[in-house]
């Protein structure tokens, strides 16, 4: 697990998602996550990965808050075990309940602008649309939708799930996203540490590119050298 800590450090990530699981009461010598990843140095984001209904998700996050007072959480309610798409009705309902309980909820959601708006209306703290199914590595399938969501919200917008390589992160950032959530693309790469570094650079490049204001797209060619003084 120190490998995980190393990859996180190399990637430059500010936030790490964590899951709530049973303590191994028979093997107490196993180190706990907090022993090698200091929650004071990196923001822990408790999340509900693996929950398939509102009840499980709420139970998980209430326990997470109890561990150490975490109010910033990531909500993920899945609807289908094969494609892992979010169950948006349960997600919306859970977001509303958690917000009322004082949580700041970053919400994993599909890339539907209308649903993103509804999440914002019930108090979501961040919108986290998928690029593609979790673990698929397909990259951003619907750039237009992400752009529409970007244009309609001032909330932090973070691409969650489906990225496959560093350039996908650049595209996300160029679309105006505020960040990306990456696990599989780094963890399952042949060289995870190198890939962590690539993602770090890709996010920085994409953000700089977005802030620099890209040129307009044209159908026809347009010479870049001046015509004056041509021989």
């Amino acid at each position: 697990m120190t490998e995980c800590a190393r990859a996180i450090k190399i990637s430059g990530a500010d936030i790490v998602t964590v899951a709530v699981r049973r303590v191994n009461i028979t093997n107490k010598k196993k180190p706990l996550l907090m022993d090698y990843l200091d929650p004071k140095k990196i923001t822990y984001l408790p999340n509900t990965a693996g929950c398939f209904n509102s009840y499980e998700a709420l139970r998980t996050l209430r326990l997470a808050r109890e561990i150490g007072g975490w109010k910033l959480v990531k909500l993920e309610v899945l609807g289908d075990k094969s494609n892992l798409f979010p169950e948006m009705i349960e997600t919306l309902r859970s977001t509303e309940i958690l917000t009322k309980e004082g949580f700041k909820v970053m919400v994993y959601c599909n890339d539907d602008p209308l649903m993103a708006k509804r999440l914002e209306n019930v108090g979501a703290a961040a919108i986290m649309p998928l690029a593609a199914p979790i673990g698929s590595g397909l990259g951003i399938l619907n750039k237009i939708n992400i752009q529409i969501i970007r244009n309609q919200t001032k909330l932090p917008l973070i691409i969650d799930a489906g990225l496959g390589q560093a350039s996908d992160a650049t595209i996300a950032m160029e679309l105006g996203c505020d960040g990306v959530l990456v696990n599989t693309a780094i963890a399952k790469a042949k060289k995870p540490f190198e890939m962590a570094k690539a993602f770090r650079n890709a996010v920085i490049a994409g953000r700089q590119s977005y802030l620099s204001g890209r040129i307009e797209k044209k159908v026809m060619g347009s010479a870049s050298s001046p015509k004056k003084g041509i021989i």
Partner: protein
Amino acid sequence: MKKKIKIKINDKIIKIDDKTKLSDLIKNLNVPLKKVAIELNREIVDKKKLNKINLKINDKIEIVHFIGGG
């Protein structure tokens, strides 16, 4: 001799003395209290009030912590 009762911790059945305090049980398990959350029969237990809870037969306890993953 004290009466023994069966309870469940993280889905494992164990035998303890009747009316054992939850705080004593946690102490015996050597669990770092600051890094876990505890549920008793599906209700979150206030970690400051562990010594006020006497365990009874068939109680179900969950002790959870954070692992990497998301």
